[in-house]
């Protein structure tokens, strides 16, 4: 990658002498150098205005459709790939769904560097390219991959600056105004490099450019960054490749040597005609155009030429148009062949989660619930939502949850497209007190809870609380969020209000008897004599009754309507209390059995069944 500061007179070269193919320009002649000196003098006149000039950075991913595909399939990174102009119908492949079809006369629109090195060029047909390189991989553009890559690129840009504008696919502008306070480390690094203020500012912009390229690299793309006073100039600087900073007031020097080909005039028919006409007149660089009379150019070549001429004179738009955007952290993959194996799917999901994790990390967020949409070979869709107990950024835990969901209910057909969406959540802030006991670090705690939830199930970890019900066994699960430690610890149990009594010392030597509940209650058989339990037999116990306490009648929720009762019954049947009716009437006993335990059993009045509810321990 090109790294260097723009040197007047050598617009696309660098001090180290390396240059990319896109930056190959001719060196200026002595006559041109004298003209350059004149333009420098005129630039000094507006020094005050330049101090307050806007600074725009353009992050540009070249060959974007291909880069998006490579991002989705990292194994293709160094392979020769060619993209055909338009996707054709998919052809069925035995047992593997449908595969992308292409014809020998399909034209290549984008080629990778490896293919280019083999002599393949764009607009070659597949047959021509294959004759040069038989191992060429031919693919169709993937709109889903491009969408995901563009979202990721915007996320990377937004992580740098809150003011950004998304341009064409693969291009994002950000406003650098005021970023010194946001990126103090870059500012400090720049200050250490530069001796005076202008150099420090330029060094800071270099630091920002490097940071931007690094962040885009983290999301799986390679980007060029150009920084200038306007969007257009920054875009042209980025098109030169590498990291390029155009200092304020030096735009003309940079643009003077810019070939017309780099301005993308040929993207439409009018521009293509204009470029041809300008070249016929010998105008091959923007500098040639800038020295003409704008009125004459306008009358002869039209509005497009005037716009181009203004650009050549260094004028440009520095106002970024921000559009509201729905923050969707989603990744999509369109598979060439349908896959039926969950293990293979796991590899793809891991890569997708990793990319999403990087995007979330760039934005300082963590992942909440997940939505997985699978497009199947039989043209059906499998959509599932996976709950995440504790928001986490740990890929391993999220992948575990996905795998568990897929293993519990595998998709009925081969998978052709995958779309994974993560709900972003802010991480829990942490602020510990120096004089209080340590509490769990939120990020590490959430990661641990997410891993446990993946292993045991999301409804098996949290804070267990009694439910708002008179039913003795009713419990509910809440998210574990321990409150901060109190500044003054509460008094011990014996000293608490309501528990302290006259003459009762703080330490009573008497523990509270706990019950180990059995969820769901276990059906047992109780042999009675004159309605007094004599012998208990169940799946795990069979013993004679030694002592009895009770019965104590519990009756409740009879006031519930039939619909509520049905709902509760349905909810209970899927939960822990599988055999508990919504309305209950029970006689509770505490039975000391000959096996040494004291058990809590009840007899249900509706079913006349006996249940083992708990054991005192």
């Amino acid at each position: 990658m090109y790294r260097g500061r723009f040197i007047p007179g050598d617009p696309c070269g660098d001090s180290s002498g390396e240059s990319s193919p896109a930056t190959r320009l001719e060196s200026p002649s002595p006559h041109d150098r004298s003209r350059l000196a004149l333009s420098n003098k005129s630039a000094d006149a507006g020094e005050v205005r330049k101090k307050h000039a806007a600074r725009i950075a353009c992050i540009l991913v070249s060959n974007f459709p291909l880069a998006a595909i490579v991002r989705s399939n990292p194994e293709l990174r160094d392979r020769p790939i060619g993209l055909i102009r338009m996707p054709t119908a998919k052809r069925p492949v035995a047992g593997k769904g449908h595969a992308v079809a292409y014809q020998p006369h399909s034209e290549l629109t984008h080629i990778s560097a490896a293919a280019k090195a083999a002599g393949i060029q764009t607009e070659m047909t597949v047959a021509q390219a294959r004759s040069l390189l038989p191992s060429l991989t031919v693919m169709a553009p993937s709109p889903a991959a491009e969408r995901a890559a563009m979202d990721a690129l915007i996320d990377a840009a937004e992580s740098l600056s809150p003011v950004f504008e998304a341009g064409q696919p693969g291009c994002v502008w950000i406003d650098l105004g005021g970023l010194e306070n946001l990126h103090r480390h870059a500012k400090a690094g720049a200050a250490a490099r530069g001796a005076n203020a202008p150099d420090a500012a330029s060094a800071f912009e270099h630091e920002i450019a490097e940071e931007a390229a690094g962040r885009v690299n983290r999301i799986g793309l390679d980007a060029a960054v150009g920084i200038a006073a306007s969007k257009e100039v920054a875009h042209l600087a980025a098109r030169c490749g590498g990291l390029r900073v155009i200092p304020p007031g030096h735009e003309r020097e940079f643009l003077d040597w810019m070939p017309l080909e780099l301005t993308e005039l040929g993207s439409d028919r009018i521009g293509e005609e204009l470029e041809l006409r300008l070249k016929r007149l010998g105008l091959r660089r923007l500098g040639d155009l800038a020295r003409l009379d704008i009125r004459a150019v306008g009358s002869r070549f039209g509005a497009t030429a005037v716009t181009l001429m203004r650009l050549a004179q260094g004028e440009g738009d520095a106002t970024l148009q921000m559009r509201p955007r729905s923050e969707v952290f989603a990744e999509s993959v369109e598979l060439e062949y349908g896959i039926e194996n969950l293990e293979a799917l796991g590899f793809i999901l891991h890569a997708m989660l990793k990319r999403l994790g990087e995007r979330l990390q760039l934005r300082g967020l963590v992942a909440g619930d997940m939505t997985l949409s699978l497009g199947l070979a039989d043209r059906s869709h499998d959509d599932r939502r996976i709950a995440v107990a504790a928001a986490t950024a740990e890929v391993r835990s999220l992948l575990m949850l996905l795998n568990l969901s897929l293993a519990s209910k595998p998709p009925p057909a081969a998978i052709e497209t995958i779309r994974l969406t993560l709900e972003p959540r802010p991480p829990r802030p942490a602020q510990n007190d120096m004089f209080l006991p340590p509490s769990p670090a939120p990020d590490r705690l959430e990661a641990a809870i997410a891993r446990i939830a993946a292993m045991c199930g999301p409804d098996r970890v949290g804070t267990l609380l009694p439910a708002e019900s008179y039913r003795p066994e009713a419990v509910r699960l809440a998210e574990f969020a321990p409150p901060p430690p109190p500044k003054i610890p509460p008094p011990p149990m014996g000293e608490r209000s309501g528990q302290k009594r006259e003459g009762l010392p703080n330490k009573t030597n008497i523990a509270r008897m706990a019950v180990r509940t059995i969820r769901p209650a276990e059906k047992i058989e109780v042999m009675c004599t004159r309605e007094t339990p004599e012998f208990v037999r169940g799946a795990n116990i069979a013993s004679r009754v030694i002592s009895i306490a009770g019965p104590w009648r519990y009756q409740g929720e009879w006031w519930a309507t039939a619909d509520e009762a049905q709902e509760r019954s349905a909810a209970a049947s899927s939960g822990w209390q599988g055999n508990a009716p919504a309305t209950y009437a029970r006689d509770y006993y505490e039975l000391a059995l000959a096996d040494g335990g004291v058990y809590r059993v009840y007899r249900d009045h509706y079913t006349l069944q006996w249940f083992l509810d708990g054991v005192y321990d």
Partner: protein
Amino acid sequence: MAAAYPYLRIEPDNVTAIAPNPEKSKVILEINGVFRGRELTRKDRRIVSNLPLIDDLIGGGIVRGRISEFCGATGSGKTSLAMSFAAQVTRNEAAAWIESSDNLDPASMIAAGIEPTRMLWVSCRDAKLVHRANRLMDDDDPVIPSLNSGWRHRVPVASLKAAEWILAAGGFGLVIIDFDATVRFLPQSTALRLARAAERSGAAVIVMGERQMCGTFAALGLTLKRYRACFNRTRSGAPATFDGQMIEARVMRNKLGGSGRSVVWPAAVDPCGFVRQPPSSSPVTRLAGQSRYDLYRLVPANRLGGCGQVE
């Protein structure tokens, strides 16, 4: 060497004679003092149960950074004792309760004084302990052949893994691992790993099971046994009430104190309503073959005219 560095002689009787300045010698002794293992576990680093009988028995409480084992059959009072420790911890720290089955009763937990919002509950019942955990674990064999028979013991890998993750997260004062009756054996490597995780995190770890499982890696082994269930009637012919249990606790292993001692302590359904009557004031005559603990019984507080003296 003693001549060159006389202060290295750690003989308290001779320190004054060797070092003329007593204050200086004190400082020197502190720096070069003999490393005594018991000092590593200071009293203020222990977690008390607020039950003086139990705390005195185990030398002041369970130790942070170590494993304490509570063993006993179902109904022997393990859960009640563990909740007593958890109630003290959750006053200002977080604790975790990991169980192999869904047995934790939140009502009992709150009644015992535990702050439920500071208690992380994990149930590994549906984790398909051996099968699923076997896939998740990459370094421990979850199924170990028994030494004396052909059948294989089940190792609760999911519970252990959850405990390890929680300990690694840090910030917990107490981690309670409740193994059900089917768990009988822990591999030494697993116990060692758990002990090291506890030591790194500084959290006290209570392992509950039917028998001792951590072996030499447990700092404390307490065996609990139900001594007597106490039923009571307010008057003749009235339904009986279950008041609680008398539980015998015996120290089977204590690396930081003596072992072999035992006490009997009561666990009551309503501790404020019942007190333990001391043997001296007990009207029950001690019979031949009865131990002194048979004289302990739970007496309703109103019988003693409020709350009587509790031993």
